[in-house]
């Protein structure tokens, strides 16, 4: 059983974690001291935007990774791509949760409602959340690993097709109060600098989580292989 290694944290993982910590702390410092404390109309509540926007963008990135990895799984049947799809699905679901939660909190402060059923972006995000929750459930519910890999990949593609359809459906047949452009946020350069630094900082953090899930997936599969082999030996002994 030469492939069983004691779990050791890769040095690059520690560096990554340190970078994420420093960047998110720096972002918090910038939000507290650098950007305008309040802007017109929505006042201080806009500050949550620096957490909301990176999460929303990361969520789209991770779901795109799910799509690309799913296509790769179907083309090559590779377990490595399946692990990537699986980890990206989980982290995508998490960032989607952050997006919906921060969006809802913001809506409560700015528009005085926790949940605006007619808002296109909020509804798209919520339905995206439900779809990918199903994806993660599917990944966990199928026992046969060959089947699981293929079924999850198929649904990973269907779920992605659904995103633009939902977006247009809610936009066309509902009304939206969500800011469509960033002009409303004012023209102070510190705002746009902090926004993009926030994207970088949070993406570093989410990428760390992704790597962690990927590593965990990897060791879990290796453990399953070993267990299956041990079981095989035991059955061989008893026979």
């Amino acid at each position, binding site marked *: 059983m030469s492939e069983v290694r004691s779990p050791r944290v890769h040095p690059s993982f520690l560096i990554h974690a340190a970078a994420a910590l420093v960047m998110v702390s720096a972002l918090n410092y910038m939000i507290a001291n650098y950007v305008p404390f309040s802007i017109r109309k929505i006042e201080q509540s806009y500050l949550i935007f620096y957490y909301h926007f990176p999460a929303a963008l990361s969520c789209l990135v991770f779901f795109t990774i799910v799509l690309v990895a799913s296509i790769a799984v*179907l083309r090559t049947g590779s377990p490595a791509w399946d692990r990537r799809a699986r980890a990206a699905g989980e982290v995508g679901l998490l960032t989607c949760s952050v997006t919906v939660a921060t969006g809802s909190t913001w809506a409560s402060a700015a528009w005085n409602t926790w949940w605006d059923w007619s808002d296109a972006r909020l509804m798209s995000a919520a*339905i995206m959340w*439900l*779809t990918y*929750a*199903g994806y993660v*459930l*599917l990944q966990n*519910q*199928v*026992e046969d690993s*060959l*089947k699981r890999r*293929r*079924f999850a*990949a*198929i*649904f990973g*593609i*269907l*779920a992605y*097709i*659904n995103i633009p*359809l*939902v977006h*247009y*459906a*809610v936009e*066309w*047949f*509902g009304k939206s109060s969500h800011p469509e452009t960033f002009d409303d946020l004012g023209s102070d350069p510190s705002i746009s600098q902090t926004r993009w630094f926030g994207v970088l900082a949070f993406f570093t953090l989410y990428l760390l989580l992704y790597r962690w899930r990927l590593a965990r997936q990897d060791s879990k599969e290796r453990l399953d292989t070993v267990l299956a082999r041990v079981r095989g030996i035991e059955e061989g002994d008893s026979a």
Partner: protein
Amino acid sequence: MNALRAFGALVRWECVRELRRGETVVSMVLFALVTLFVLSFAIDPSTETAVKAQPGILWTVFLLAGTIGIERSFGREGEERVLEGLLLSPVGRTTIYYARLASTWIFVAAMETVVLVAFLVLYNVRTDLATVAIVLLAAWVGTLGFVAVGVTLAAMTRSIRGGDVLLRLLLLPLLIPFFKAVVSLTTQALRGFEIGSREIAMIAAFDLVYIAAGQILFQLVVADFDG
């Protein structure tokens, strides 16, 4: 045997089976009626709110009842190994997919037709025949995409433990765009407004996207029969 004849034979076989036993359509219709009654207690049908909610109520019932038909499109694992039998037969997978799509569509469309009549009576909807025809046509056309994606997912979830719940969890979020469009269209029809082009565009896009995706992905669902 060419594909078209195989397709015809498969659809006919399913319809004959259904005519003899009537299980799927009858269960769907009864389930739809029960849901209509439950909803009538949730929203009093005699109020103004219920009149506004009518298209939504109708389509909620169609979708929930329709998933029963979709779930049964391949029989149950272990109980009736319909899909396995079909895959062993000398018929192309695309043909199998379209035949299943067609037969399931016929059953769901039949349920919708019956339930629509019951709905008009129970909810006391006063309207003309042309409006009913528009709503029915929208239901039939829209159900194509609904069934197309449903059949693909059903072929997948039938072999999974707890797959019946999973099917609904995976399917319903995918139906939201279609649901939104078709409810909007039904509202316009029942209120006598002109039908919006965006509604028609969305339903058409939904149909085309999911029939195409379903055809390709169905092949991949049943791919392990190759080896």
